[in-house]
């Protein structure tokens, strides 16, 4: 193959991001003839916007984990839980498999996802040329797995929905629930704003 340019962009074509139509590059601002969307060589400000969303998500992640997420009044007892103490409580009542699922969805996934995305963004910023395949795989996993962190928010909503009349028990949603939901949404947006084609832009040859 040698050093022939490989990407569509280097050979004078743009690929529409929403419908994937290949369009010969002409002029400055173009619209996709198929879906009428503006077509750019790469998503504009993709890196800067991803960083901004990712960092705001990261700063919210700390209070979201330290502050209590809900309070449960049940038969005269009051329990205030953070995400972690809720998981430990699940283990105490003998539900280790469910505790592991909640741990993966609420703690491990957001943390690893933010780390992975930060590594991908950093590598693009430093124009690294090794491990591109690995980074593409990482990005696919990050994109797929991000939504599942909403699990805890739905569990709290279901608990609120069940005990709504407060006759026998009641649930109070604490501020960390809202913070945590914001973390999930911000990191999902960060992954969506990132243009995965940037990972490959420094690569001009393959065997």
């Amino acid at each position, binding site marked *: 193959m040698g050093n022939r340019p490989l*990407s569509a962009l280097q050979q004078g074509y743009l690929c529409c991001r929403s419908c994937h139509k290949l369009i010969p590059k002409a002029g400055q601002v173009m619209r996709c003839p198929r879906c009428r969307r503006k077509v750019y060589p790469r998503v504009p400000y993709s890196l800067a916007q991803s960083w901004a969303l990712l960092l705001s998500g990261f700063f919210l992640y700390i209070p979201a984990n330290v502050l209590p997420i809900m309070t449960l009044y049940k038969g005269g007892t009051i329990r205030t839980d953070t995400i972690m103490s809720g998981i430990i409580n699940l283990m105490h009542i003998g*539900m280790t498999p469910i505790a592991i699922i909640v741990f993966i969805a609420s703690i491990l996934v957001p943390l690893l996802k933010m780390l992975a995305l930060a590594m991908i963004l950093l590598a693009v910023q430093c124009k690294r040329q090794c491990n591109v395949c690995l980074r593409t795989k990482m990005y696919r996993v990050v994109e797929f797995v991000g939504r599942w962190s909403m699990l805890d928010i739905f569990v709290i*909503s279901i608990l609120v*929905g069940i005990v*709504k009349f407060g006759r026998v028990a009641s649930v109070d949603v604490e501020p960390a629930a809202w913070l945590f939901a914001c973390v999930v949404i911000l990191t999902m947006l960060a992954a969506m704003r990132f243009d995965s084609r940037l990972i490959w832009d420094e690569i001009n040859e393959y065997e």
Partner: protein
Amino acid sequence: MLNTDKAAHLEACPECDLLIDASEQVREGYVSQCPRCLGVLEHPLRLSIKHNFICVLTGLVFYFPAIFLPILKFTMLGNTEAMSIVGCVLALFATTNYGIAGIVFFTLVLVPLVKMMLIIFVTTRLYYSVKTPFLAVSFRWYNSLSHWGMLDIFLLGVLVAAIKLANDAELEPGLGLYAFIILLLSSALQTQLLNKKLLWKLIERHGQ
């Protein structure tokens, strides 16, 4: 640079922007991957427009029972209470958790319904080859909303919540749960097996 009849077969990998000659790299009826990043370009497991439409229609029929009927019934100290998705949103709203109520409403009520309406609009128009405006816009909206539907995660949430409450109360699945599972399956099947490439080609042919 490249002559025109070769250019007609050109495609760019949406994930890594490698320029690909589709006549060499993409074979119909096989899984074809981008030779560089291994992203899937074409998959043989796709629903036809008709089957896709049937799938969405099934989802739409079970949507309303899934949203309004109780998903879990909960008995504690002689009191029975029922939880439905709409009930959840209303309870969150009543307890002034507007943000969480908004998220639940958006991801479980609004997105699935709007997605089904949009894809029904697009597939029926394309099936009968009616020239209609807004086809491309509708399909674009359908694709962007796909990220935000969270029916599958809610089902896992029901399981976790049920286990959290199992020690203190008697739980019973409601009719809504069965409707919800059918809605979830039809929506997952329809979204995963949608032939987007074919739909975009048809939209291009039938204008706007």
